[in-house]
């Protein structure tokens, strides 16, 4: 933990602090962040901290971060502590913080909350996320062209829409360039468990996968890919230093601009509860440099798709899309709405196994 919070000795002191919050000058913003993993995961949490640092640098305001906060009861305690410690803009950066955030927000109406990847909002709770699935679509093209075994391994954290969307978007692109390729999914039921992620990576490789995708935050699957001589795609950050040979690219999150914009809105008094969902176009999702071993033709194909997504010509979820049974779920010419995407709960054709309920 980079900054330790003083234990609040009594309820009286807490009340006094809460009072100071309500009387804080509108121009004064203190931003607090809670992260699900350690700052040094070099994945998801690392990027949120990078965003925090960018915000602190851009606006020169006080920020703090609490690392490795478990989703659930513990999160509520930490969020409340931040709110009582005078932080008036609080970013809760994991899906599982959703209910804790809303609960605490109700008790601190003058504190602004921003919850990442969630879908529940209130007067002082905004939600924000990035269209990572756009990045995963590009990864799908690369994987489809680079695989020889036509088996792709996908390590999932929890079967929530966010992750399922990534799997589907990836698979749609994969099958477009390589209709014979299939995706095997292993759920490790954790966002950050290097040992288990590595076990899952080995298992998928043992079952023939020669490209690994991950929606978990450690670099362990990529390290395994590197030592076993297969390809991998980095998650949230450029993980090439862990797998210089194996990483095809990485889907990189970029939160700095968004965090700066939100803090500025609080400063100016213009902050309103809203939902933000930006992708490649908004610069919230970026791709790490392509692996040098990828043929130029494939890079060109991936780049063309990236540009088409930015220009709006291409949407990863444009029909026809078939589900696992082969039934057309999105007709040709149609595109899944954001509403449907946010609650996505089925596998598309090409994914093996069934989605855990």
């Amino acid at each position, binding site marked *: 933990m980079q900054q330790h919070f003083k234990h609040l000795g009594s309820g009286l002191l807490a009340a006094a602090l809460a009072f100071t919050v309500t009387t804080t000058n509108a121009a004064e913003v203190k931003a607090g962040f809670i992260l699900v993993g350690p700052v040094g995961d070099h994945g998801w949490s690392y990027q949120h901290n990078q965003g925090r640092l960018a915000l602190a640098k851009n606006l020169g305001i006080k920020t703090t971060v609490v690392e490795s906060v478990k989703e659930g009861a513990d999160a509520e305690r930490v969020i409340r502590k931040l709110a009582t410690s005078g932080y008036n803009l609080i970013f809760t950066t994991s899906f599982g913080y959703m209910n804790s955030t809303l609960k605490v927000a109700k008790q601190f109406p003058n504190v602004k909350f921003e919850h990442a990847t969630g879908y529940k909002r209130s007067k002082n709770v905004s939600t924000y996320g990035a269209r990572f699935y756009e990045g995963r679509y590009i990864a799908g093209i690369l994987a489809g062209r680079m695989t020889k075994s036509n088996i792709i391994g996908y390590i999932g954290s929890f079967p929530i829409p966010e992750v399922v969307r990534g799997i589907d978007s990836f698979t749609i692109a994969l099958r477009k360039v390589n209709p014979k390729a299939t995706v095997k999914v292993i759920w490790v039921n954790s966002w950050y468990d290097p040992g288990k992620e590595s076990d899952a990576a080995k298992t998928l490789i043992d*079952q023939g996968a020669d490209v690994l995708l991950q929606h978990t935050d450690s670099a362990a699957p990529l390290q395994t890919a590197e030592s076993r001589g297969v390809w991998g795609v980095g998650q949230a950050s450029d993980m090439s230093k862990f797998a210089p040979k194996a990483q095809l690219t990485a889907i990189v999150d970029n939160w700095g601009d968004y965090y700066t914009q939100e803090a500025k809105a609080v400063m100016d008094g213009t902050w309103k509860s809203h939902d933000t969902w930006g992708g490649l176009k908004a610069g919230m999702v970026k791709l790490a440099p392509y692996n040098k071993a990828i043929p130029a033709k494939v890079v060109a194909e991936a780049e063309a798709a990236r540009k088409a997504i930015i220009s709006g010509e291409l949407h990863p979820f444009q029909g026809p899309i078939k589900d696992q049974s082969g039934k057309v779920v999105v007709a040709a010419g149609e595109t899944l709405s954001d509403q449907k995407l946010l609650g996505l709960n089925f596998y598309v054709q090409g994914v093996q196994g069934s989605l855990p309920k």
Partner: protein
Amino acid sequence: MNVDSPMWVEIFLTILAASIPLLLAGLGELITEKSGVLNLGLEGMMLAGAITGFAFMAKTGSALIAITTAAAAGMAMSLLFAFLALTLLSNQVATGLALTLFGVGLSALLGKPFVGTAIPELPKLSIPGLSDLPIVGPLLFHHDFLVYFALLSVPAAAYFLLHTRPGLILRAVGESHDAAHALGYPVIRIRYMAVLYGGAMSGLAGAFLSLSYTPMWAENMTAGRGWIALALVVFATWRTGRLLLGALLFGAVSILELHAQALGIQIPSQLLSMLPYLATIVVLTLISADSTRIRLLTPACIGKSFHPPS
């Protein structure tokens, strides 16, 4: 890695790797318990070894230094335990638990600067000629030092316990410290050595995790393996061969769970994640049903403080 190996060889190697940390820590604890000391601090000692080995690997790049210091770190932790439990006669269970909590916190603190650092994987020691053999090569002759060490430690520990005089004395101390003391054996000193051996082995188990299994440092990366190793010692009824079997079985259950998922077998993944732990409970229940056998094999003085009569 031999790319042409059949799938079952690859799967077995993955299972073997999953069982190595359990085997190392379990063997250390087995010897410790045979001397009559119950050290529940495996998890803490493993974490101390994991971070120390990792830190020295990152700083020096030498696998030898990393492995040696990891063992030393485990020993240092166990020395602390031995001083409290054997010299100051504190309660062994409470001291062991405290050691685990201490190790978790200490390793997290020391590990702070090393989170996200990349290190080279532990080198594989290949034996020219033998390593290139089909199937047998990758199966037996393409591992890193710690894997060979763990596997060779099993017969070594068995031989030590059953066929050497010091082994006999160690067991005597564990069975009846009063009798051993009456015969003139230095009970406390022998227990100190057993505890230190346990610490070194736990340190190595931790080093295997942070240097070979996933070459990175992550807070609390042992993820409960120390507790599983403890359970395995009871599972094995203090027999080295059975400990190896138990470690492999446990490794197998945790890996095959993932295989079932990748094959799309219809079982909730949360249930599958529970399987290794359920297996431990079931086996423990089965074993404790036969109470005479358990009593025969359990070191009679386990967990009891020894106060030399003056």
